[in-house]
């Protein structure tokens, strides 16, 4: 039941107050108390108005005080732009995006690429390649051996063929071309010749292997010298990698350097925000405390008002019994 409804109800029964002064006094006291409560509320509203600019705390903080404080404590992203056009952008999550200019990005990629190449050239795989170069390909060596053997054999072949023809002629003259023996296969001379040729070919094969190895050694030596030179170059390049890396990240470092003042400013802003938020929070807490106290006082007045009425109703009067019950019933509603 609202106050207006109570007043209306009470006004409806004014003629009865005349009859029943105590009752009316009591009612008057209740009304006065009600007035006091109303004033307190006005005071409360005034205070709230003065504090927050709104009559109520909820009006001042539509999203709630906590949300307002929380909102006040949130990080405000900002962007820093360097003199070269590169930007460093923060986000609400605390991230930082560094955006170099296309020229700076190209330079950085180039430097990083060089560094990568240099670093790649120093790895184990490269060492294995170096080993392979120095050791040579066995297949290639065999091929070379076969090539040398073929050439040497080709040089020896005419003499061997002449020897065979001479033997054939001799065997023909001796009527021995058709000789086959279990001991020698053919004639002993043919076996001796073929054996000599085989030995010569074996020697040639050994020579070919030696020559191929010598060539491989020579090649390996030359390769080693070249590789040593290359290694020195690589060493120099390896030594250059940090410089390249450093140079590659120079634009980024510059950008980060340019970010420092903004960070400081942001930090100041954050401090201010934190202070404001803290002040609001404190004020809100104090407002709430005050409002709570006022509400407690109002409640106490209301308790007192109601207690006065209840005390009036404690007097036994016949005519009023019914009315008191009605009021009690009404107030009880």
């Amino acid at each position, binding site marked *: 039941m609202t106050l207006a409804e109570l007043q209306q109800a009470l006004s409806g029964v004014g003629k009865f107050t005349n009859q029943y002064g105590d009752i009316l006094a009591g009612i008057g006291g209740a009304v006065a108390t009600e007035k006091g409560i109303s004033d307190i509320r006005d005071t409360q509203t005034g205070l709230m108005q003065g504090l927050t600019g709104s009559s109520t705390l909820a009006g001042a903080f539509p999203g709630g005080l906590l949300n307002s404080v929380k909102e006040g404590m949130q990080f405000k992203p900002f962007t820093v732009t360097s003199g070269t056009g590169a930007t460093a952008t923060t986000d609400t999550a605390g991230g930082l995006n560094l955006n170099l200019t296309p020229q700076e990005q190209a330079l950085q990629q180039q430097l990083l690429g060089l560094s990568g190449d240099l670093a790649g050239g120093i790895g184990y795989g490269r060492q294995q390649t170096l080993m392979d170069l120095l050791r040579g390909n066995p297949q290639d060596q065999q091929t070379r051996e076969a090539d040398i053997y073929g050439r040497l054999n080709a040089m020896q072949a005419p003499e061997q063929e002449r020897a065979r023809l001479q033997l054939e002629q001799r065997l*023909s*003259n*001796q*009527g*021995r*071309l*058709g*000789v*086959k*023996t*279990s*001991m*020698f296969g053919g*004639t*002993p*001379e043919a076996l001796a010749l073929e054996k000599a040729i085989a030995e010569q070919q074996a020697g040639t094969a050994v020579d070919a292997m030696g020559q191929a190895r010598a060539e491989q050694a020579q090649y390996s030596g030359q390769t080693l010298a070249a590789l040593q030179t290359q290694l020195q170059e690589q060493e120099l390049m390896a030594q250059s990698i940090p410089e390249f890396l450093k140079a590659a990240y120079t634009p980024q470092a510059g950008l980060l350097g340019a970010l420092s003042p903004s960070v400081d400013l942001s930090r100041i802003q954050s401090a201010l925000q934190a202070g404001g938020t803290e002040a609001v929070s404190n004020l809100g807490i104090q407002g709430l405390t005050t409002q709570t106290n006022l509400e407690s006082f109002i409640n106490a007045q209301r308790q007192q008002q109601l207690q006065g009425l209840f005390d009036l109703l404690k007097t036994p009067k016949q005519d009023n019994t019914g009315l008191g019950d009605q009021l009690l019933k009404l107030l009880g509603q």
Partner: protein
Amino acid sequence: MAQQIQNITITAPGFAGINTQDAPLAQDPSYCAIADNCVIDKQGRVAARKGALLLTTSATPLGSSEGIKAIKQFRDDSGATIVFSVGNNKIFTGTTTLTDVTPAAYTITSDNWKIVAHNEHVYFFQRGYVPLVYSTATTPVKVITAHPGYTGTAPNGNEALAAFGRLWVADTTTDKSTIYWSDLLEGAKWTGGSSGSIDISKVWPNGYDEIVALAAHNGFLVIFGKESMVIYQGANDPSTMTLYDAISSIGCFGRDCVASTGKDLIFLDKSGLRSLSRTIQEKSAPIGDISRNVSQDFKILIAAETGTVSVHYSPTEAFVLVNLPSQYVTYVFDTQFPMQDGSYRVTTWTSMRPLCFTNLVDDTLYMGLVSGIAEYSGYQDSGESYVLSYESHPLSFGSTSTLKFLKKINLTTFNGDTATVSLKWAYDYTASYKKSVFVLPANNVALYGEAEYNEGEEYSSSISLINREKINASGQGTVVSVGIETDVDGSSIAIQEFNIQALVGRII
């Protein structure tokens, strides 16, 4: 006016053997036209050959076959001997009794075996047949594949030679140009060791030929083809032996047509009988023909021969036999007294009809006959007599233009022992012989039997050995031929001398 009687003496008539090659009138009187069943004896006389003393008592094992086609006596290191022979598609041992030793389940359809002995073994080779082998240690005769030492594949050759410490085999069904040799001293080992082969198809001097026979002589391996021959030296080591000579247009008539006399190699070419030494020396010159005196007749008979011609040398009898079985004649070439032109004195045998010959280790001559094995011994052929025939060429006594009137013929013979001798003469190239028959006196058997060829007795004055028969002759003509015929029946006989007395008449 009566003319003086002219005496013409023909000493040792026919001493030079048969000569049917030269013009009769131009010939030396020592040549003859016929000397059949004769040999030239040690004294150079025409004498009766020995007979064929048949040793085999039963010819039943030979059935209806041609007879014994090959004989070989084998003597092992212990001195034990065994005679192998082949005939009726069987392998036999023994002489009096032929025992069939053909390996079981081994089918033979031909008897053209070549039997050679080598290092305690006897090997039997015939084209298309797996060789057979016998040794004292591996009796009986067995297929060579069953020999414990057999390795490789033995060639199924037709010709085999045991020489230079190994076996040499050639003339297989499919290969006529390759000679295979076994391992040293291992006739059953045909692979490994020092075995081998030589293909001489590129060596033949005529470009192509086929190996017919092999022979070893004086360190040479002689390879006979049909039309040529190839000689290798150093065959002691076959792998290094080299061609010594290749002779064209002279070959060998058949596998069995080669005989070694020790100092020479006699072989039968289709052009005649030849000596290797003279052939090498003279190459293909006809002068190397040692059958020159009967060349044409000989060649005709050879060409007509359809049987297995064989040439055999008997060192004891000192002759080379050339047997032409289908012609029923055996030419006998005396090796004692070669003629100045290198030819041999020739006689013939016509009634013996041998099929093969072999010398035993004691140089006894064995021969294969239709009824078994016979020994060249005695003066009967299987118990029968045979006819000795001698005819001279027409004799002109130095003048073919004057008539001759034969007055008397004195015939001196040696031995004969009651033989009936028919002396005959004819004039002017005709065969119209006038004959005079007489019987020789009996011999002193004891003297003959004890020392037939001792130096004293045969030239003794004993009438029992030497007989001079004087026969009165008749007729006339410009040339006269004389001859004798006699049955040889258990006793030898030799013609020592003809002494012809003729009256020389007018010139016609």
